[in-house]
């Protein structure tokens, strides 16, 4: 069912990622002093990209048997089976929308960047363009290229505009993620040569019976692990809190909000889709690792004194739940995983906006003992933070609830014990969120100067309202997300189930 029709002659998906490359070029050609103009160009184009993703979302027909729509195919290096193939389905669409929302709000939140604004905006938009590219690629090679394009600007963004051990954080993050990419390259080469087809077209690669069982079991590992590093899977998660803390606010938003989802998306779209038998073989180890992720991440979050570190570890914990949904490997679990990617993306973007921009940029501290009583000065920040917190605890009526509900249901069907154990993370999450809310926004104000903090800007209000609205709408009417997602994960879940019966033989 699609609400609107778009002319098929327009390359919508190319337009989406190009809509952020064009302003990168424009901004690079502007003068460094034209800061306000640069911001306006950046924000305007990120809004255009958001609008384009919305249009595509509304025009996507998830009832149609043809899951991939808005296809674009251009030969690139056809001798080697490398082509420029774009297309979206119900899994990539919510991710596109998420990226649109986060980059637009991130752009609004970045309004106070004064130092080297031109380079900042160019890199920020380039990063988001790479993210769009990953979500629309159907060619593995192309996907990888966009993936790297999304990762690399991060080094400079954190290194130049970051805080708190920024050079260390930037280097650690980049090396971890590139280490992941190294695994992916190995997996890609194996995918190319092990099958009977010499192609990188994932639609063809995902056909069953292309790879032998042994190949699937061996090469699933590098492919999955490579992406899982970016998704923050235990024990490869340590780059993530350090990186998030060091990064400037909008970059943390994009990073925790969207970039980590690239990892989970890659795990699903590349590793599990191409190697269902391999995935099936490794489900239990993955499930155990994600259990540790969820519970251990939440526990560590509880012990943090630094507000931003707490959010960083909460991301690790929630991404653990996402991967757990993948490890459930059934329709309901996969739906939950994709939904969690969306819900957590919006929610964590809101968290970082509050922590990094609204609180830290004004108080210049993130230590819990030094904060307190901020509700009186910035009630808006407190309210949106509480809403995001409730969503992250899984409060019914907000987006996070549906996601976690589905994930736990899916896991219950696959490994009930793990589902039960992972349930521990829910009260812990509630614990640290409530503690943070109490310590930062209520309680006594430790520093009397906080009374005179400058008020929130219009851009901050708009960004906050958009993010909260998405959380609430998705909580009340999740069907706009779940129906396309379910329709698209179903074939993957079926392939996984088939692989399961094969493995039994």
């Amino acid at each position, binding site marked *: 069912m699609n609400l609107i029709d778009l002319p098929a002659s327009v390359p919508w998906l190319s337009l989406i990622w190009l809509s952020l490359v064009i302003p990168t070029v424009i901004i690079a050609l502007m003068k460094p002093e034209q800061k306000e103009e640069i911001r306006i160009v950046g924000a305007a184009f990120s809004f255009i990209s958001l609008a384009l993703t919305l249009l595509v979302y509304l025009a996507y027909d998830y009832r149609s048997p043809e899951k991939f729509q808005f296809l674009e195919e251009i030969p690139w290096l056809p001798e080697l089976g490398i082509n420029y193939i774009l297309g979206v389905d119900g899994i990539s669409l919510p991710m596109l929308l998420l990226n649109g929302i986060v980059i637009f709000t991130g752009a609004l939140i970045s309004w106070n960047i004064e130092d080297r604004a031109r380079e900042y905006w160019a890199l920020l938009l380039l990063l988001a363009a790479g993210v769009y590219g990953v979500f629309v690629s159907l060619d593995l090679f192309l996907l990888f*290229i966009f993936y790297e394009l999304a990762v*690399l600007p991060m080094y400079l963004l954190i290194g130049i505009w970051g805080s708190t051990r920024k*050079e260390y954080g930037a280097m650690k993050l980049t090396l971890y993620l*590139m280490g992941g990419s*190294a695994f992916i390259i*190995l997996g890609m080469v194996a995918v190319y040569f092990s099958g009977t087809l010499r192609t990188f077209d994932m639609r063809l690669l995902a056909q069953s019976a292309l790879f032998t069982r042994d190949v699937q079991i061996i090469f699933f590992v590098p492919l999955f692990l490579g992406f899982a590093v970016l998704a923050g899977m235990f024990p490869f998660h340590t780059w993530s809190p350090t990186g998030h803390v060091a990064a400037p606010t909008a970059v943390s938003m994009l990073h925790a909000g969207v970039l980590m989802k690239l990892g989970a998306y890659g795990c699903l779209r590349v590793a599990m889709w191409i190697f269902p038998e391999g995935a099936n073989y490794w489900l239990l180890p993955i499930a155990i690792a994600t259990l540790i992720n969820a519970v251990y991440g939440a526990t560590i979050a509880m012990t943090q004194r630094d507000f931003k570190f707490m959010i960083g570890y909460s991301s690790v914990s929630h991404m653990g739940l996402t991967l757990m949904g993948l490890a459930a490997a059934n329709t309901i679990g996969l739906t939950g995983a994709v939904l969690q990617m969306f819900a957590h993306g919006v929610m964590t973007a809101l968290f970082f906006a509050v922590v990094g921009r609204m609180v830290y940029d004004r108080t210049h501290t993130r230590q819990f003992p030094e904060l307190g009583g901020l509700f009186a000065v910035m009630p808006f920040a407190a309210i949106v933070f509480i809403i995001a917190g409730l969503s992250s605890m899984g409060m019914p009526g907000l987006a996070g609830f549906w996601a976690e509900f589905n994930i736990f249901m899916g896991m219950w069907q696959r490994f009930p014990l793990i589902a039960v154990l992972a349930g521990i993370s829910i009260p812990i999450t509630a614990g640290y969120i409530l503690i943070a809310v109490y310590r930062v926004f209520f309680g006594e104000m430790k520093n009397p100067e906080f009374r005179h903090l400058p008020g929130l800007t219009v851009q901050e209000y708009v960004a906050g309202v958009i993010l909260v609205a998405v959380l609430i709408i998705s909580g009340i009417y999740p069907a706009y997300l779940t129906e396309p997602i379910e329709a698209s994960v179903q074939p993957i879940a079926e392939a996984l189930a088939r692989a399961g019966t094969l493995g039994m033989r």
Partner: protein
Amino acid sequence: MSFQITDIPRILPELMLLLLGLLVLGSDVLTRWGRGPEAQLERAREAGQLTAVGLGLVFIVGLVQSRFLFTVPDPSGGPLDVLLTLGRNLQAGGPGGSPLLSAFATDEFTMVARLTFIGAAFLTSLLAMGYRLTANPGEFYGLLIFSTLGMSIMAAATEFILAYLALELSSISLYVLAGYFRESERSPEAGLKYFLFGSLSSAIFLYGISLVYGFVASENQKAGGAPIVATLFSEVGRFATGDAASSPLLILGMLFIIAGLGYKISVVPFHTWAPDVYQGAPPPVTAFLSTASKAAGFLLLYRLLTTAFPGVVGTPRLEEFNGWTSVLAILALVTVIVGNLAALPQTNARRLLAYSSIGHAGFLLLAVLIWSSTSPVDRTFGTAALMYYLIVYTLTNLGSFGVLAVLTNALGSDDLNAMQGLWRRNMLLTLMMTILILSLAGIPPLAGFWAKFFVFMAGYQAGAVPLVTIAIIMTVVSLYYYLRFLKAMWILPAPETTPFKTPPVANAAIIVSTALVVLLGLLPNLIWGTISSAASVAAR
């Protein structure tokens, strides 16, 4: 098999290089120059311009001749007939035909190599013009051209003596060039080190040749065949098959040949000269040395091994030794590891890139390993991967060493620390260096990424999966030191903020190489088709 007058167009670019070299030398000697600094400058400029224009011309002739871009149509009675006839005659000497005197192949492989070297020499001459040159510019540019000539012949040689002479021609010119700054502290040291290492290596190479010659001649005598030219690659290939291929004489000769060429391509353990020479030689020479010279070594090694020793290929497995692919696999393994790890603690930018280029030699060897597969498709792919990598590597390293040449000139130092806060001082240069460094690191969508990916594919297909895995891990290690460039240029605070200008000629060279790196990254099939066809000829 004798040399015909009609064969001259086939070696026209080489002849033109020879004439150009003599012309540059001669015009510098025969002109009366004043003594003042003004006149010195004028003299250097004149020699540089003559070289650049001449090399550009030779490049165009080579490009037209190769038929890579277009085939000249038949003259049709129009006003352009003279040009068309000229073009047709030129292209008659294009790729194809049996090697001249069985010793000098003029196939697509040679054409690609020739264009690469001449192009590299052209960009180097631009860089040199942007750099302060002290004495005797005529000699400098003349030697540069002779070295290019040697390289072109190296890539075309199908006979041992010619290969050896070409190797010497290119190397001896480079020894002098490396020690060209007689007043500086490091340059003579670099020249001497390079010379000692190089001459020892050529002796080893020559010894290897003599062993192989002995093997072929005695085998021929045993078989009672008619007298043959026993130094032809093809003759060696004819006898080095079956049982005879395991003859210790032949194997020893082959190992000596690989070791002798190993210095030219600076693979571990024959690499120790490289860091000192790269750091000490005049910066434009370093740019040339690390790119064209290395590419020539690779192409000669490749043609030699594949045509003279196809019977001793073996498999690239690390645990057993059964042919030259196993030797190269071991060399590749130690080279990627040592090159990349040794680059980590370096503080001098040129020295760092020297180690990185050693690491790149290891990646390049992966492409050659695929010869262990008997399928022509695989072999073609491997050859194409090798050539693509060499071209991209040449462009990237020329550009990045070019940037370092500009920096050395402007800042007086090529330490990484001196690059701090470069974005404030010269934005364009910083931007281009960033792109070049990222391409060296293999970040998509730049050309360096495709190059690395292709050689990994080739190595995987050759069955050397553990080796490819280690090489891929080493790319992550390499990223650490490449990011140090970005950190210095973009992140660390600038000790000084006064802007400086890039000399326009050097700027042009750097812009051209950067633009090509980006272009070949976005559209790799611009040259992939040409290279593949060249490779399929070579793989036959």
